[in-house]
Structures are given as structure tokens and as C-alpha cells.
């Protein structure tokens, strides 16, 4: 049995019954990662020695008849925007190149408390700003299905590492689609939970009214397993929700036949790839064939979502990123005459082009004379988008949409055109603005053999519903069985 063929749920089972040790599993993933990283470049840092030591400790614990918990011996990777004590946290930015957080994010401490082994930190667009992981201040990541293509972003390192089976599962963060879009482009499962479902304590902030941490894995069950561990109220994050957490994993196989699935009557099909559209239609037929009832719905404001999102998220980002001033942590530009010059130079040298662009755009829309026309107007439009969903969810239990308008694009293809890059988020942004949960599940391949994803959106805190639907779809199809041509 090759441990790298197993999902997190399967690894936990095999270790539990003694057929594999945590050390064997960890070694296998580290070896595979050593072999594939020169092609994929998914990681920014790895903690080989610490991971093997921890695996040994977990094996010793099991030898004494004990289990650390629900993730005993499961190797995981975290997007390098999630703080772990003793590991670097660069956020993909030169401005935090040598930063080691002095505390654990709540999600990290919850994973560790359940026996997970953290193998490393994955690549991302700088401060999660991007849709291709090309904005990383360190290096690009390649799509395991075609290394000439991007893995999507901003959690492109996590998605690529999972797709390449360098890791069974990982965490990313999703502000406008940064878990779901790379999951779609890399052919894996990716879930953005309801806003507030998962604590963000220790997640470096990008746009605070939108940011949410979510799991990526090769099966729906792995997403359910990880969500069950990381979800729940945290006194350290005042925006975290107090709603009770479902047993997502054990409720996964529920009946979906009575569910009503909303299909948007009008999709912005302009610029949409015909293979994606075909896969989307086929996916709806598949869901209907297993007893789901499809219902046409209207989301009249959805076509304004990208505009709304880039006004709100950049405004919030310009404020959140004011903290990088070269004083308390991170990079400081050397040899400056006065404090303000030091700020300006530090930020000039420490930030990459996309981050600067968004700080400028966000500061512009918040500045005197423009605030009402852009920022406040966008916040009102956000209300209209949320109302669209409220109305639709009176009639349906979930909504199906494509996750992305196209399969993975070529490295460099959209770098010179920020607006085109932003428009690749067109289907993921609406759920972010409304704060509802949404999941990507593999739903086909383009004629070039690149993965295509289906997105299922649910009501606030109805993660169980979309996980069940995604699981039923996964059972009815074999897209998750195919492997990238790496070996």
C-alpha cells in the first residue's frame, strides 16, 4: 500500500488499525514531495525533521494504546498566511521574508490537538491577492496537470500540493474564491465555509469582511473531516460564529433526493470556455439523475459582483496592510533619514506590484470625494447581492454554478492585464460577498486534459447540505479518480 495514494480519512483508518505508522506515512509524503517539488513548486517551506519527530511521538502514543484524535498521524500543509509557531509565515511577501509568528493560529492549534502533522507552508499570491499564485514574492507554482499552466490562486500552493499528492489535504484561505478557484483548476475538492464558521485568529488579514479559512482535499470526505476539526466559535476572534458545529463527516452520506437545486437562469457566458459550459450542463444532468430536483432561479445583481468585490476588498486591504511599516516585524529598508521615508521605502521595496496596485486602488476608493461613489455604493450593492441569495434560498436548498469561466490558463497569460485576472473570479465572488458556504468538486476535463470544477453554494451554516450534494456527485462520477500526468 502506497500511503500517498490514500486520502486523509483512509490514512487515519490505516494508522488506527496499525497497518501503517505515522512515520511511514510522513516519510512517504516527504519523499514524494522531494521528487515532485522541482516540477510543481507548491511549498514555500517544509519542516521535515520536526514532522518526522512528531510522527514518532504519535507512533509512541499509539504504542501505549492512545490516540491523539481525529487526525492522528495525518500529514497536512497550510497556506503560508496561517501562523504556526516555529514555522516561517511569509504571506508570499518579501516584506515578511524572515517573520516567524510567536503564536499558533486557532486552526493550527486545533489541527495539532487532533494529531495532525504539519509538513510545511504552501505558496500563494502575495497576501492572498491574486488568482494564479504568480504574484508570490518568491516563485510561481505550476499546475500538476500541465506544468505550463497556473494552479489558480491565491491558495495555488495548497491546491497543487494536494493534486500532486505531495500532501493528502491542506488548508487555504478564500476571500473572493481563493480556495475554490485553485481547487477547480487543480481538480481537487475545496470548501469555503460560511463567513465566521472558522476562526481567523492567526490568519494574516487581507479583507476582513470576506476572509475565511477552508480545507482542500482529494475527496469530499476529507473536506468534511477537516472542517469538523477547524470549525466552531473561538473567543480570540470576535467575528467567529457561535452556531453549533455539525458532525459533517458522519452526516455525509445522507439522502439528497428531496433536495432542490437552483440553476441560475442567466450566467455571464461571455468569455466562458465551451468545455466548462458543457461540463456544467452535464453535472446538472448527473445530479438530476440521482434524484435532485433542479429549479431555475434568478440572481439579477450577480453580474455586478466583480466590480463590487474589487472596490470593497481593496479598500479593506489598504487598511489592513498599513501595519507593514518596518517597525515591529518583517523587512525594513536600510539607511533612511527619517521615519516617514523609512515607511515609504520599506513598503516600496517590500511589496510586489499587485499588492501596491490594490493598496493604491483601495486608498483611492476610500479617499475624500470618492468614498460615497465607490466604497459606500459597493457596500449597498453587496446588500442587493445578498438579497438575491436570500430570495433564491426561499425556493431551493443549494445553487449550482461553474467555479471558473475557463480551465487553468498559461503562466504569464493574464499577468499584464489585472482586470482580466480579476474577471476569472466571476463565479466565486458572489458567495464571498453574501458570506454563504460554497464548495468546488471535480466535474470534468477540458479537451486539453485540464480539470473543470462544479461549484455548489448553500445557505448560511448549511455546509452539511452542500457537502452531501458534493459527495453524491462524487459517487456518481469518476473525475476524482483520474491522476495528473506527473509519474
Amino acid at each position, binding site marked *: 500500500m502506497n500511503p500517498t495514494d490514500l486520502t486523509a480519512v483512509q490514512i487515519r483508518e490505516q494508522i488506527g488499525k496499525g497497518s501503517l505508522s505515522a512515520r511511514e506515512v510522513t516519510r512517504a509524503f516527504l519523499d514524494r514531495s522531494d521528487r515532485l517539488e522541482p516540477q510543481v513548486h507548491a511549498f514555500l517551506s517544509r519542516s521535515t525533521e520536526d514532522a518526522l519527530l512528531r510522527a514518532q511521538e504519535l507512533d509512541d502514543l499509539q504504542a501505549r494504546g492512545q490516540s491523539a484524535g481525529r487526525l492522528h498521524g495525518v500529514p497536512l500543509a497550510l497556506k503560508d498566511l496561517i501562523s504556526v509557531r516555529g514555522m516561517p509565515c511569509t504571506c508570499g511577501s518579501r516584506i515578511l521574508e524572515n517573520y516567524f509568528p510567536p503564536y499558533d493560529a486557532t486552526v493550527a492549534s486545533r489541527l495539532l490537538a487532533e494529531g495532525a502533522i504539519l509538513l510545511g507552508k504552501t505558496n500563494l499570491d502575495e497576501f492572498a491577492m491574486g488568482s494564479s499564485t504568480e504574484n508570490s514574492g518568491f516563485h510561481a507554482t505550476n499546475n500538476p496537470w500541465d506544468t505550463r499552466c497556473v494552479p489558480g490562486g491565491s491558495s495555488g500552493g495548497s491546491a497543487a500540493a494536494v493534486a500532486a499528492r505531495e500532501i493528502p489535504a491542506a488548508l487555504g484561505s478564500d476571500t473572493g474564491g481563493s480556495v475554490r478557484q485553485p481547487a477547480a483548476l487543480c481538480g481537487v475538492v475545496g470548501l469555503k465555509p460560511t463567513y465566521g464558521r472558522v476562526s481567523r485568529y492567526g490568519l494574516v488579514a487581507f479583507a476582513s469582511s470576506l476572509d475565511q479559512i477552508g480545507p482542500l482535499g482529494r475527496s469530499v470526505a476529507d473536506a468534511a473531516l477537516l472542517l469538523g476539526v477547524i470549525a466552531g466559535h473561538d473567543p480570540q476572534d470576535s467575528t467567529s460564529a457561535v452556531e453549533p458545529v455539525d458532525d459533517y463527516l458522519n452526516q455525509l452520506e445522507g439522502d439528497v433526493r428531496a433536495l432542490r437545486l437552483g440553476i441560475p437562469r442567466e450566467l455571464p457566458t461571455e468569455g466562458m470556455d465551451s468545455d466548462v459550459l458543457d461540463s456544467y450542463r452535464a453535472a446538472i444532468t448527473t445530479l438530476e439523475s440521482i434524484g435532485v430536483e433542479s429549479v431555475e432561479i434568478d440572481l439579477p445583481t450577480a453580474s455586478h459582483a466583480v466590480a463590487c468585490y474589487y472596490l470593497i476588498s481593496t479598500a479593506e486591504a489598504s487598511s489592513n496592510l498599513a501595519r507593514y511599516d518596518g517597525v515591529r516585524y518583517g523587512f525594513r529598508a536600510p539607511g533612511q533619514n527619517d*521615519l516617514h521615508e523609512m515607511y515609504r521605502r520599506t513598503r516600496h521595496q517590500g511589496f510586489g506590484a499587485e499588492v*501596491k496596485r490594490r493598496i*493604491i486602488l483601495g486608498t*483611492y476608493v476610500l479617499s475624500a470625494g470618492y468614498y460615497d461613489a465607490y466604497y459606500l455604493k459597493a457596500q449597498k450593492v*453587496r*446588500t442587493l447581492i445578498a438579497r438575491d441569495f436570500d430570495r433564491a434560498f426561499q425556493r431551493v436548498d443549494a445553487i449550482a454554478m461553474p467555479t471558473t469561466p475557463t480551465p487553468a490558463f498559461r503562466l504569464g497569460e493574464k499577468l499584464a492585464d489585472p482586470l482580466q485576472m480579476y474577471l476569472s473570479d466571476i463565479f466565486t465572488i458572489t458567495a464571498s460577498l453574501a458570506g454563504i458556504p460554497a464548495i468546488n468538486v471535480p466535474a470534468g476535463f477540458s479537451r486539453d486534459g485540464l480539470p473543470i470544477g462544479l461549484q455548489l453554494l448553500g445557505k448560511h451554516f448549511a455546509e452539511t447540505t452542500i457537502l452531501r450534494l458534493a459527495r453524491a456527485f462524487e459517487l456518481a462520477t469518476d473525475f476524482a479518480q483520474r491522476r495528473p500526468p506527473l509519474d
Partner: protein
Amino acid sequence: MPKVTQKDVERVAKLAHLELSAEEKQAFAAQLDEILTYAERIDSLDTEGVEATSHALLRDDAFREDEERPGLAREEVLRLSPSESNKGNGLIRVPKVLP
């Protein structure tokens, strides 16, 4: 409405304490203009009487007792600073504040 000029970019960069190169100013002015022109589509929506959403799900009960809680160790936090001479004195050194 937009016609973002390099002067606008300079004004905003100053507010954001961000130095930009000449090439960046030129590129950002053109790109911001394109992005904001695209964003103007939201003007066509009637938002009269619509309240603004600042958070998707805003809790209004997220209060806790105002009690002392342990924080991070002072020395550990000070060690994170790129300041050259903060060793041992509990201070972070910065260049002079008044030019």
C-alpha cells in the same frame, strides 16, 4: 467619471505611505482607470434606501468581560523587530520622527 491621472496616483500613494517608481505610477494610473471604468457599472443599480453591508454576518453580541489575560512574552515580540539596537532595553529604534 474616472480619468485617473498620475497626479491622482501620487496623491493616493502619499496617503498610503508608499513610494512608487515612475513606471509604477504610469502603469497604475492606466490600470486604475480601466478597473474603475469597469466598476462604474454598479452606478446603474438603484440603491436608494438600501443599507450598506459592512460584514456578511455581523454579530452584535461579540462582547466579553474586560479582564486581564496573558499576552505574548515581551522579549519574544521585541525580537521580531528589524530595529538594529533593541536588544535588551525593551525599546524599538526607528529613524528620527521629525525631519
